[in-house]
């Protein structure tokens, strides 16, 4: 159980945990702080992941079949045009030289230039990533705002084996929706809400209401996933002694569930939500395509098709960095919620 929650719950209903020994001072305090070791481990991890990512991304795109120069020059290009294109793109150098050039560029903050559009890869990402981020962040917000209360409500309503039909219906519905591929959900939303009812735009990014359907489409499955996790976690929390004691003191429902139950659910929920957000940032390709949402996913698929290697490398690298940073952020939040996670001891 997170210490913060124990502390707070104890103020109302339970015994107070013993105070920890007084903190050290000065440099020793920093070195002995669990945050110091945590920061060192995470920094090493991020550097390692990025190094592996750079190497793997380069190897991956090099092993893709097809000649980028031929594709960039066009189907009707003459051999001279293809040779010139290959030279201009630097593809006539050895693989080692190309890797050196790539890494050198990265160290200078240069992600390269698109083979096909001659745009800077950093500009492409700057254009597209906000759209993908918008979709993913709003999606995860919906997931948290709907999934957590839903899961808690069902768990409370079905506490101690009550309302089994509701529990069964919830499990069945979330199971079906959660396991339905998002492109099917997206297509159904378009057909029903967009075309049949005409309530919302079926695609595009020109107006604010165009966001509604894609956000629902990306969020619906994860809402079910989170709701099921929260429902299960809530049931466990509700069975704890301190919760029984809190109920025995007839605390108001909002205080009981929001102050004492919810914080205990956040560790697992945030961990899963972080993973879902990482997945949404890199994996909303289908939804972006269905809703003509100009995110980074559709652009990278196009780049793969056209063997636009710098774009593929740049996008994968930036998404990888984002995933690292998100994981780091989640670890920090979990560390604040439960400092024992900083030293690798999981909360019970």
């Amino acid at each position: 159980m997170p210490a913060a929650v124990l502390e707070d719950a104890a103020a109302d209903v339970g015994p107070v945990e013993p105070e920890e020994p007084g903190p050290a001072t000065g440099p020793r305090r920093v070195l002995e702080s669990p945050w110091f070791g945590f920061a060192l481990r995470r920094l090493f991890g991020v550097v390692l992941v990025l190094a592996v990512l750079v190497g793997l991304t380069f190897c991956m795109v090099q092993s893709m079949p097809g000649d980028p120069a031929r594709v960039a020059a066009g189907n009707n290009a003459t051999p001279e045009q293809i040779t010139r294109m290959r030279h201009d793109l630097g593809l006539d150098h050895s693989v080692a030289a190309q890797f050196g050039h790539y890494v050198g560029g990265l160290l200078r903050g240069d992600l390269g230039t698109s083979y096909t559009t001659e745009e800077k890869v950093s500009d492409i990402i700057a254009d597209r990533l906000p759209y993908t981020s918008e979709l993913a962040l709003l999606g995860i917000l919906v997931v948290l705002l709907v999934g957590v209360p839903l899961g808690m409500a069902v768990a409370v309503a079905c506490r101690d084996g009550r309302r089994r039909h509701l529990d069964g219906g919830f499990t069945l519905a979330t199971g079906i929706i959660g396991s339905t591929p998002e492109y099917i959900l997206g297509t159904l939303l378009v057909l029903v809400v967009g075309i049949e009812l005409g309530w919302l735009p079926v695609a595009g990014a020109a107006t604010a209401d165009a966001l509604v359907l894609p956000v629902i489409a990306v969020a619906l499955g994860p809402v079910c996933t989170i709701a099921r996790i929260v429902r299960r976690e809530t049931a466990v929390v509700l069975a704890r002694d301190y919760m029984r004691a809190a109920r025995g003191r007839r605390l108001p429902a909002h205080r009981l569930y929001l102050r004492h139950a919810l914080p205990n659910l956040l560790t697992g929920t945030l961990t899963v939500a972080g993973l879902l957000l990482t997945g949404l940032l890199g994996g909303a390709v289908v939804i972006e395509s269905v809703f003509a949402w100009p995110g980074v996913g559709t652009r990278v698929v196009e780049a793969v098709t056209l063997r636009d290697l710098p774009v593929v490398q740049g996008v994968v690298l930036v998404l990888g960095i984002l995933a690292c940073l998100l994981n780091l952020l989640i670890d920090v939040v979990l560390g604040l919620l439960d400092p024992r996670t900083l030293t690798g001891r999981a909360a019970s």
Partner: protein
Amino acid sequence: MRRVNRLWSAGVSAATLIMLVPACTTGNSGSSGGGGGSGNTSNGGATVVRTTFTSDPKSFDPAKGDNNNDYMSARVLYDTLVRRDDGGKLIPGIAESWNATATTVDLRIKSGVTCSDGSPLTATDVAASLTYFAAPETKAPAAKQVFGTGTMTATGDNTASTVHIELDHPWADMMFGLAMPQTGIVCAAGIKDPAALAAGKTPGTGPFTLESSRRGAGYTFSRRTDYSWGPIFARMPEGRPPSALTASVVTNESTQANQLQTGALDHIALTGPDMDRFGSDWASSTLPGPNQFVVFNERPGHPGADPRVRQAIAAMIDRTAYNNASTRGKGELLTSITDKTSPCVLRQEYAGAGMDKAAARQILAGKKIRVLGVNVLSGGAGTAYLQAVLKEAGADVELRNVGFATWATEFIGNAGQWDLGVMVNINLSATLTTPGSFMHGDDPPKGRNIGGTQNPEYSQNFLDALGTTDTAEHCAKWEAAQNALITRFDTVPLATVPEKSIYGKRISAVTPGGYSDPTLLWLKG
């Protein structure tokens, strides 16, 4: 207690930030504006026609164009010297008249043509634009299609408003090349600043200017009020041209169809099954699209080196069945290596292989044949059909349907192991030369002869056809060349991959020469 409160405060702040950050990023297109409006039909009171790009244009420099989105934007921003009308007839564009031989063209420029900054377009500007297009450092993908393999020299006479083009090798298709959107005439400012030209920030000669763009989302073009030199086709749309044109970037054909059905778009172009959603109550035009024909690897050691094997394979192919597999029967069966919108293409139907299937089976039994296809076309269903019929003939068939880049490399570049492939050729010049050049000359990478075809009769007639602009002689040579290919079984003509342009209720459109042109999407009434 205080710690929990802080956490909740932090949570609420984070949620607020999450809401605000995207609003600050994607809601604002910065200096590029907000193109591609999907739902509005008015733009500051102006009337707008809404169409789509399937991806962002690669560049707004017309010379760099190599896909349909590039061609569409080039048509909107830049006019060409001539245009192609129905039946392959050339009509005036920026040039009001011309006189062409196989090595020279003299054109007279219309008076009153201006760049969108108001400066007059001179003959020397036109010559400079053509020189820029042909220069190797421009890397214009279509330069050789327009001016052939030799060197081009263009000079302008501002007093006489004439432009003289001279080639050091005969290229009878030059005038057709000058109708291609890639040869759109660029103003002097664009040639001076190619980066600005590529970004669409320099003045053009076409009916629209780029007002705003948001890559990945859409583009807005405003119609020039001073534009008066546009081509007059035999058939023109009814009504009036729009004051603005938007092109939303929509890759998915189903999404395009959804948007047209819900009134969010006025025009879409489909090649896949979504076209069946639009019945006769929707105005539409079916355009020929890319052409498909069989190419054999005729190099020594390959089964296709033996003309009897090529004939047997041709005999096993039911072209109607192939068309059903690859285009759901929507394509038009070809008579040659391109469709009937091209001048001089064979008019008589393909006569077949002249061999019965029993004889074909005897020849093909046990032959190892590697079929290479591209999976972007109906998932490679056409080549899967070829695999099935050749297997049925007793051949040992290996099929690989690969992505476009691999196909272009291994098939067009002849860098892979294949014996039989299907060429899918987008013939924008609508000449026989474009597909014909894949069956003649040196092997890749030195030349473009995909299958290593060695057909002297074809090659001679190909070169002769390029050496004359006399229509009758030109077509006679091409007829002989095509017949030489077909009777020697160097190819089997298959089918077009049709594109269906579908229009919203308020749109009137024409497709002269069998090609879609966004500047010819007009508003009814």
